[in-house]
């Protein structure tokens, strides 16, 4: 268990670093966030200065330490202040509406892409030099395309030219309203297909290439040759002998690459005007909505940290060596 305890401690440190950076960035940056908002809205009265200060949390009375502790307290209660653009709504309300969209779309698509890429990687590594393996350079081209640009191309072909899919939005606002009924779910599914396809197609090559490389080195190991010499079926050798061990570096890579995938997916949402965190982030950037930007940064960071923790749990499940190290030898 000590492996998990150590990892948990590490994630706590990482979370604390993110929180602290989030606290200090507005205070350390040249230029004043309050003034830049005042510049943005010239019809604001000078008396609004204090109000904006209070809203951003920079004008807190007391020492820096006092500000810091009250900030941590706010975050712990999901109190991120009031939103600038959607004025009466609080930041956490706005976030709460956007998170499910991103979580379902990006989460599902990433898992599908990881499983698909790993499976294809196993095949490509096993049949080294075969059809799948030779198609890799083409897939690398897909991988090098920025997510959002690939999204642009897909929208142009499938939504604008062929009319197979809707152009934008998360659901059809004219025919349905959000809720747990079939009409809405069907509409949401239809709208999520193209974004999901974008994520899968652009990220699958990365997983595949990594898995292929690990597979090739694993297949060269003596124990795999021994398994073949015993006359085990190919199927058994691939999955229970080679792939199982090749999967461990792949899983570790999954945790680290998650930040990239999520970041790419966020920018992609902008192309589709998908009502998730990414679009929210764009709106926050264009309207200088600093409280929202900061809250989004925290939400994304924490999501990635939690996902990494889950990956660590899976690794413990898969790798007896990690468990053995934990019980203390």
């Amino acid at each position, binding site marked *: 268990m000590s492996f998990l305890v150590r990892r948990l401690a590490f994630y706590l440190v990482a979370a604390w*670093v993110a929180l602290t950076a989030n606290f200090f960035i507005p205070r350390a*940056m040249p230029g004043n966030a309050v003034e830049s908002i005042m510049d943005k809205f010239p019809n604001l009265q000078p008396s609004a200065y204090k109000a904006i200060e209070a809203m951003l949390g920079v004008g807190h009375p007391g020492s820096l330490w006092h500000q810091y502790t009250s900030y941590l307290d706010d975050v712990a209660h999901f109190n991120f202040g009031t939103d600038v653009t959607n004025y009466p709504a609080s930041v956490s309300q706005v976030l709460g509406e956007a998170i499910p969209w991103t979580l379902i779309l990006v989460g599902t698509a990433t898992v599908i892409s990881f499983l698909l890429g790993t499976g294809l990687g196993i095949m490509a590594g096993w049949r*080294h030099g*075969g059809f799948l393996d030779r198609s890799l350079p083409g897939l*690398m081209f897909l991988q090098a395309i920025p997510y959002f640009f690939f999204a642009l191309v897909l929208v142009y072909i499938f939504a604008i030219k062929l009319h197979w899919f809707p152009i934008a939005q998360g659901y059809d606002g004219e025919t349905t309203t959000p809720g747990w009924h079939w009409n809405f779910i069907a509409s949401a599914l239809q709208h999520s297909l193209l974004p999901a396809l974008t994520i899968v197609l652009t990220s699958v090559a990365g997983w595949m290439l990594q898995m292929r490389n690990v597979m090739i080195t694993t297949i060269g190991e003596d124990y795999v040759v021994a398994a073949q010499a015993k006359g085990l079926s190919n199927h058994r050798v691939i999955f229970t002998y080679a792939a199982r061990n090749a999967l461990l570096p792949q899983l570790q890579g999954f945790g680290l690459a998650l*930040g990239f995938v999520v970041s790419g997916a*966020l920018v992609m949402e902008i192309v589709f005007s998908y009502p998730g965190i990414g679009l929210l*982030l764009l709106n926050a*950037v264009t309207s200088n909505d600093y409280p929202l930007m900061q809250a989004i940064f925290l939400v994304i960071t924490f999501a990635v940290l939690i996902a*990494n923790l889950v990956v660590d749990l899976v690794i413990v499940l898969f790798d007896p060596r990690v468990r053995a190290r934990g019980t203390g030898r």
Partner: protein
Amino acid sequence: MSWLSSFWRQLPMRAKVGAVLLGIFILAAIIGPLVASYAPGYQNPSPSLSLKPPSAQYLLGTTQTGQDVLSQLLTGIRLTLVLAFLVGAIATALSVLVGMTSAFLGGVWDEVLSLITNVFLVIPALPLLILLLGYLPNRGQTPTIIVLAGLGWQWGARVIRAQTLTIRNRDFIAASRESGEKTWRIILFEIMPNEVSLIAASFVNTVLYAIGASVALAFIGLADLNSWSLGTILYWAQAGQALQIGAWWWFLPPGIAVALIGTSLVLLNTGFDELGSPRLRASRGSARIAGHRVWATDPTPVLQQLIGSPGRVYAFFHSFSRSSLLDNSTAGGELG
């Protein structure tokens, strides 16, 4: 120059393709702005020249305000590449510094530096970049380069630390330490030359990250929008509703340029990987041995069984004949 040509011959095919492709773009970055026929921001006043599809005069068509897309592209490649290479150089220097210090000093230094590296690895870079650049009052080149480099060194540092740890324990390092060489000399002249390929790979990776991140940041408007880079062209295309209008010549070329630069870097890197570990090299695939496809991962085929494999019908009749008593295989044969 003979070592150069022999080095080139050693390179795997993928690396060669990548190097040529990248070379083309570097050439475009150097001479592009000089050969562009129009200033990238020049707005042609004639309304008939707005949103023109590609023609002989405007090879890649024009934008909504009559700007020449090809000229924008030729100018934009320079800015994007310069920024990416600068970020790559600074971030790689940082990762060498952190990785080597951490591995060489060991102890508490190692613990602290590794912890910092790992924290940077796990915190997603793009949202933090957006937050930092969002707070900056002017979003020019220099702040962008500093911020991108400050958040792009961690992958390299991790790899270089691991490699330094293994090299540090080799005999020749112990020997040079015994002979009284200074620590900085050991690091610079004994360890560094052994890690050149690793440092090159991490440089290529960082350039790749910088291109992706800078283009994405410009696309959402977090860049100097008066300058011309591949990202800002895409930003203006998106702002001008190029997609909805169907002006494919406006948003396709910059995106394809980004993708091709990215592909060339990925190809270079996999090529470097293959140079380091020959097993990863593309093999010739399956071979045909006695009419059977045999893969490198298959057990060695036993030829005797394969050669004499008769057809099923023949084997059926053969099993009734007297000569069948001489062979010990069953009727039909398993390989039949």
